[in-house]
């Protein structure tokens, strides 16, 4: 057993840091340092810089334009980017529909779509959930009627994150209502500019315009845009879910948040002493640091397994669960440390320390992490059934 990285991997980490020092635009760096939210323009600008470097899709195979990094190097790259606070890239193209097209798509689809996902020329969003189909995804109703070479789509998708900025959407649609729910679903790629598509942005409780209701009215989509067989979309969707677990652990993001908590505590005073010098606050912060350290170790163990080519095991199933809980708890702690400053909301500069303006809205929106991506209740159901082997039922 060994916790250190090989000399080669250390050199790679050095290369990543050097690249970051040089290539991260100064305006984005300034935002990263104060953990301000990024707007889509900034995110896509950074996407293109990473694309130029060849690092935009560390997990993609070389034949589709991936950089050919080892599992450890991919991990190092991800961690360094997170720690530097660079804009998180949209996962819908790179982590979701891209891999789905690689695994299930036709050569024509691969050629048509993958290069533009890589370059950022086309931005994607996801159309899974519907108002009546959340945790029970298979009950979705958005309808696709057969019309010769085309499918005609009618219905609504919701929580379509950043659909207002997307060029394409990948959807699960119902192509057959006469079979068991999972069997009548098709995985379909839809051009957002098609007539009849409308994305209406909604605000989150953090008042960020992070997602949309997306409506489809008689939208005609060529059958060439079906990925996998018609009625075979559930298999494609399930394969996608496996891709994301370590992504959702949010270790790097929580580490930055912990540093931020300490920074705020060092700058917040009570009875002439900073909170970071106060034993009570120190132990409270230390308890979070320990939980985060445990999560990071579990993440390392999952990575080390992946390095050896093992399928994600027991240690990785807990990552989304604990990762989101810890992230939420850290935001809560940041709010507590800030005290009355935490109640300030999108005020102009100077009202609260500039660097901490974003804490309150981000704290609010962080409640979403335990709901989206398969709610934590669903995650526990999955672990109970598939790992502990407990009987389903009651």
């Amino acid at each position, binding site marked *: 057993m060994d916790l250190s990285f090989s000399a080669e991997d250390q050199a790679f980490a050095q290369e990543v840091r050097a690249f970051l020092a040089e290539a991260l635009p100064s305006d984005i760096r300034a935002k990263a340092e104060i953990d301000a939210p990024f707007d889509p323009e900034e995110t896509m600008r950074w996407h293109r810089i990473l694309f130029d470097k060849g690092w935009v899709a560390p997990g993609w195979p070389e034949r589709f334009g991936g950089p050919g990094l080892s599992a450890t190097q991919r991990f190092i790259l991800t961690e360094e980017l997170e720690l530097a606070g660079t804009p998180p890239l949209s996962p819908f193209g790179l982590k979701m529909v891209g891999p789905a097209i690689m695994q299930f798509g036709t050569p024509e689809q691969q050629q048509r779509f993958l290069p533009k996902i890589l370059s950022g020329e086309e931005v994607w969003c996801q159309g899974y*959930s519907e108002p009546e189909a959340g945790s029970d995804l298979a009950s979705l109703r958005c309808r696709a009627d057969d019309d010769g070479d085309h499918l005609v789509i009618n219905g609504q998708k919701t929580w379509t994150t950043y659909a207002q900025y997307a060029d394409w959407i990948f959807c699960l649609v119902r192509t057959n209502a006469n079979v068991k729910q999972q069997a009548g679903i098709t995985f379909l790629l839809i051009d957002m500019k098609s007539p009849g598509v409308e994305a209406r942005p909604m605000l*989150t409780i953090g008042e960020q315009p992070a997602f949309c209701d997306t409506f489809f009215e008689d939208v005609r989509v060529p059958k060439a845009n079906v990925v996998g067989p018609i009625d075979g979309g559930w298999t494609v969707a399930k394969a996608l879910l496996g891709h994301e677990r370590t992504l959702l652990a949010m270790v790097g993001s929580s580490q930055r948040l912990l540093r931020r908590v300490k920074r705020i505590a060092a700058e917040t005073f*009570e009875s002439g002493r900073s909170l970071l010098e106060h034993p009570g606050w120190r132990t409270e912060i230390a308890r979070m640091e320990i939980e985060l350290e445990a999560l990071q170790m579990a993440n390392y163990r999952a990575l080390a397994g992946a390095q050896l080519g093992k399928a994600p095991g027991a240690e990785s199933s807990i990552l989304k669960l604990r990762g989101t809980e810890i992230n939420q708890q850290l935001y809560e702690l940041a709010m507590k440390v800030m*005290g*009355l400053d935490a*109640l300030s909301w999108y005020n102009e500069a100077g009202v609260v320390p500039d660097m901490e303006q974003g804490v*309150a809205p981000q704290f609010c929106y962080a409640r979403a992490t335990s*709901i989206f991506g398969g709610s934590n209740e669903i995650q526990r159901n999955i672990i109970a059934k598939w790992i502990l082997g407990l009987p389903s039922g009651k």
Partner: protein
Amino acid sequence: MDFSLSPEQKMLAETVKTFVKQRSPVERFRKLRAEQRPWDPEMWAHMGELGWLSVPFSEDAGGFGGGMIEVAIILEGLGKALAPEPYLASVVLAGSAVAWAGNAAQHERWLAPMMEGTHALALAQAERASRYDAARPSTTAVRDGSGWRLSGEKIFVLGGAQAHAFVVSASTPDGLGLFVVDPDGPGVSRQVLRTIDGHGAARLRLDGASVDDDRRLGEPGEPAAAVLDRVLDRGAAGACAEGLGVAQAMLDMTVQHLKDRKQFGVPIGSFQVLQHRAVDMFVEVQLLRSMSVLASIRADEPEVELRQRSVSAAKAKLGTAGRLVSQQAIQLHGGIGITDEHDIGLYFKRMVGLDTALGDETWHVQRLSNLPGFAGA
């Protein structure tokens, strides 16, 4: 021992319920928030007509001589509907300060128009360096001829956005003093704040602001510090009552959602894990209700330690109960719970405001644990 309401209190509760339902459903707050208006002055005037703004003041001061039980009834109702008028800030905090520390002329000048609902007041005591401790303000008041000059900064004045006058705490040569400051006066600047819960607040900066002597509440040498302490305990008890309304509303909405929302072909409320989660919310609301009652009964208790102990215990409980209830309310609502368009998020954020204002859980636990009787009890 008796926890039942008197006939008058029951009638008040009924009036509040009807008022909120007819005149101030959550949509009213939502609309004001969209317009970035911290309140509706007409609604305030209406509350004045109903007599609510006079409830906790002695008849000498022109009030109704009610107590914190009545105040709690009103605040719980306002909390349930997220009414943004500054009842807690203007009546309970600033109003009590003027009533208790002020003389008859001062009552007439500031309390009377507030009780009528033509004016609102605010208490400016919080400063960055002192966190939740109001005892030693770094804002100073120095003598200047027959008046005073005030300098300092108050970072978060509840109800400060809409207040017509501020009660400001400041250190004077003869101890803590309370001064009524005109926000439009020279040397005074008010910066209206946007807040997480959409309720009105402001920062107040005093740059050698000139204040006449008759704006100092009470006489020098009087223990304004003790008055302020009592005022803040009333405020904390009031926050518990309003927070109880917020929590109860979240519980009710969540239980209803569990019954209505179907997934996997059944109401999600039939899943045992979600049932037990709702039970945990219910338990916390029951405990918060018990503690809010305790805080109301004890907020005006003459024995200081007993008062502080009870109020701090209740405010700390608001922190723990409020956190569990509001987090689970969002979680059990699922995706819609994190949209701005669903009301549950408005309640979630109001709870953050009430939990933080007037001392958070940590601060009140510490205060309680430092009372002399703690180690001896």
